[in-house]
């Protein structure tokens, strides 16, 4: 029997996936577990393994195509077998995937006491009956209970916004691949008219490669679109305040050197400056929980974990893998984990769990020679640390003598709704002290 290769659900809030590349083609013999396709969610690119051994056939989605999860994208056939003849958009249980799919609730466990019609309605709407309180005899779940639960559910789910446009405007937008959501309507009640869509088309044409300055237009896709959207949200919704301090990295460098001598001797990973920085930041966050928080729904949520994300530059954007529970990890463990994350980030091998759950972010542009910069907060976190290059500078030492010291400038951007200047100052001074005297990390 033909095995369906479906667009897998690899992330909790994922609805679609983009085909990046088929690593095998139609007619290829594939082994179960062999990588046959690379897909991309809005967070990561991920390799997908063949769910069966057989012949790959009937590839239905081309690279760059966006496919809803659960949709069949190809088949694995047994030798001599024909492609099944089915409608294009047949849904399959997402848990069929050989990939680490999010755990879906088991629907309608038989031991739940419910009326047949309640079972049917719940099944149709994919509702879990065990979450519904029954009001019938012996607490049996009735049709009314399911309908009430459905009504609550639907009132929680926000309806996708409908576009108010004339049929003509919709047709033109569809033909030209334009998104009506971004078009202002000039008709009654702001209805989008055909002319409004045509105007957009004209303005796009103005900056196309055909224009005299030869500008190239790059469509916003995948990770680039995600970055664009999230940066815009953060910058527009969060009042940023920024603070810069100068840090003498002499002791930091000495300690790191000692660690690395030790690591080399025991064949362990070298301790990168970023790894040690993570350790220090986690230590400071533990003392200042408001910097490890999130402003959401008019409330400040103080995170219980300290999960530190590190921005890693990629060819087409950047990604922020997360070192989870940094406060509980030793420096060697952090260094090993970070090393693995960065390598996998550059290879596009990160899993969704590697990039989720961050509570604070570090962006280190020191290796690029940047002295000082400010970063946009990684929404919905409350703060981000922008780390500059460490380089020798002439300073006055504690004896007011001119000295040459390795100096690093770091800038913290914080959400002013959550913290005021003084709180940030306390945090950043504690962090500076820890970097200037790493033994404080034992405190």
């Amino acid at each position, binding site marked *: 029997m033909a095995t369906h290769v479906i667009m897998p659900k690899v992330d909790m809030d994922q609805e679609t996936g983009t085909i990046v590349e088929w690593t095998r083609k139609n007619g290829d013999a594939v082994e179960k577990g062999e990588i046959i396709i690379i897909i991309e969610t809005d967070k990561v690119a991920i390799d997908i393994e063949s769910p069966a051994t057989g012949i790959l056939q009937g590839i239905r989605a081309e690279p760059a195509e966006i496919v809803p999860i659960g949709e069949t994208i190809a088949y694995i056939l047994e030798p001599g077998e024909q492609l099944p003849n089915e409608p294009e958009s047949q849904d399959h249980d997402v848990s069929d995937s050989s990939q680490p799919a999010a755990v879906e609730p088991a629907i309608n466990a038989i031991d739940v006491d419910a009326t047949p019609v309640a079972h049917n309605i719940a099944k149709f709407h994919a509702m879990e009956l065990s979450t519904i309180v029954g009001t019938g005899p012996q607490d049996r779940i009735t049709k009314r209970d399911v309908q009430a639960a459905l009504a609550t559910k639907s009132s929680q789910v926000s309806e996708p916004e409908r576009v108010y446009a*004339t*049929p*003509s*405007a*919709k*047709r033109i937008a569809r033909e030209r691949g334009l998104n009506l959501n971004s078009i202002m309507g*000039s*008709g*009654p009640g702001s*209805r989008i*008219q*055909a*002319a409004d869509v045509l105007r957009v088309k004209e303005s796009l044409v103005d900056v196309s490669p055909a224009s005299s300055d030869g500008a190239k237009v790059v469509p916003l896709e995948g990770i680039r679109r995600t970055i664009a959207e999230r940066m815009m949200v953060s910058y527009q919704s969060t009042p940023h305040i920024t603070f810069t301090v100068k840090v003498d990295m002499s002791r930091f460098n000495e300690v790191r050197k000692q660690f690395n001598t030790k690591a080399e001797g025991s064949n362990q990973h070298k301790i990168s400056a970023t790894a040690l920085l993570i350790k220090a930041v986690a230590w400071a966050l533990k003392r200042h929980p408001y910097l490890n928080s999130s402003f959401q729904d008019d409330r400040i949520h103080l995170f219980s974990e300290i999960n530190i994300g590190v921005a890693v530059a990629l060819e087409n954007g950047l990604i922020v893998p997360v070192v989870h529970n940094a406060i509980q990890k030793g420096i060697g463990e952090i260094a090993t984990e970070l090393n693995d994350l960065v390598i996998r980030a550059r290879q596009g091998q990160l899993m969704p769990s590697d990039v989720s759950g961050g509570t604070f972010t570090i962006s280190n542009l020191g290796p690029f020679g940047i002295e000082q910069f400010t970063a946009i907060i990684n929404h919905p976190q409350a703060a981000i640390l922008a780390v500059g290059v460490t380089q020798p500078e002439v300073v006055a030492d504690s004896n007011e003598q001119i000295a040459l010291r390795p100096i690093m400038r770091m800038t913290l951007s914080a959400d002013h709704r959550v913290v005021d200047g003084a709180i940030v100052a306390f945090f950043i001074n504690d962090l500076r002290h820890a970097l200037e005297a790493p033994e404080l990390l034992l405190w």
Partner: protein
Amino acid sequence: MTTREIRYLEAVREAMIQEMEQDETIFLIGEDIGAYGGAFQVTHGMMEKFGPERILDTPITEMGITGAAVGSAMLSMRPIAEIMFMDFVTLASEQLVNQAAKIRFMFGGNATVPMVLRTPAGSGVGGSAQHSQSLENWFVHIPGLKVVMPSTPYDAKGLLIASIRDDNPVVYVEHKLLYKMKGAVPEESYTIPLGSADVKREGRDLTIVATSIMVKRSLDAAEQLAAEGIEVEVIDPRTLKPLDTETIIQSVIKSGRLLIVHEAAKTGGFGSEICSVIAESEAFGYLDAPIVRLAGRDIPIPYNRNLEYHAVPQVEDIVEKACDLVKARI
């Protein structure tokens, strides 16, 4: 072809005379059509020309007129029945709807009913509620009947000759206000095929589909709109059944906007049918505004001349609605 300007009623008369001259099976039957020459003088002089055997004056009995027409048509005659006011097709409906429309089908084609029922519809002459109605859509709804509604002298002649020659019963709806309209009409006999619409004026901004007197009012409106830079396309279906949908669909695809104008009451009127044709067609995807119907108010036509005037669409109403549509105000 030699053409000259004649009136709409003269074009109707000429069509009948020319057909009667070359086909002896054709005869007229109706009230006051002989000696009196017709309530609107359409058959004036025909009694003298063809005699009382072929121009039959009847008592006031619409059912009798129509029943005689149906029966004689089944027996190889080609009758032209006149109902003096369309309002009284109510009395003729049994013969028209239950007999004329059904016979060819029920007898497997062994009998045909090649008759024409001519009748003037419409308000505007102070005829009040019982002498002013436009009831064409009743018959559009009856399979087996054809419905013709000429709006010009030229169309009146060509469509009537085609109707007379058609082997099916045809309801041929004239308009009282159009009888005196003058237009170029060829002297020779000619036909206009039933089921072909006519683009009376070309334009790119708005399609108006209008019937009967509303074609003339729409053309007058289009003239005024052109002065404002609005180019209106006016389409006259000419026959409501069979309907030339393709011409209308293509026009809406071109203009993206549709205004339907008829005199009959709006609710359940023929405009609903045109509207549905477009909604179901490929033209739907080209609509850039709601489809608008401009039609008679849902009231009996009043006797008072001012009220009568405002009971049905007038040129200024068409201009206003057309502007609203083209300027995206609705």
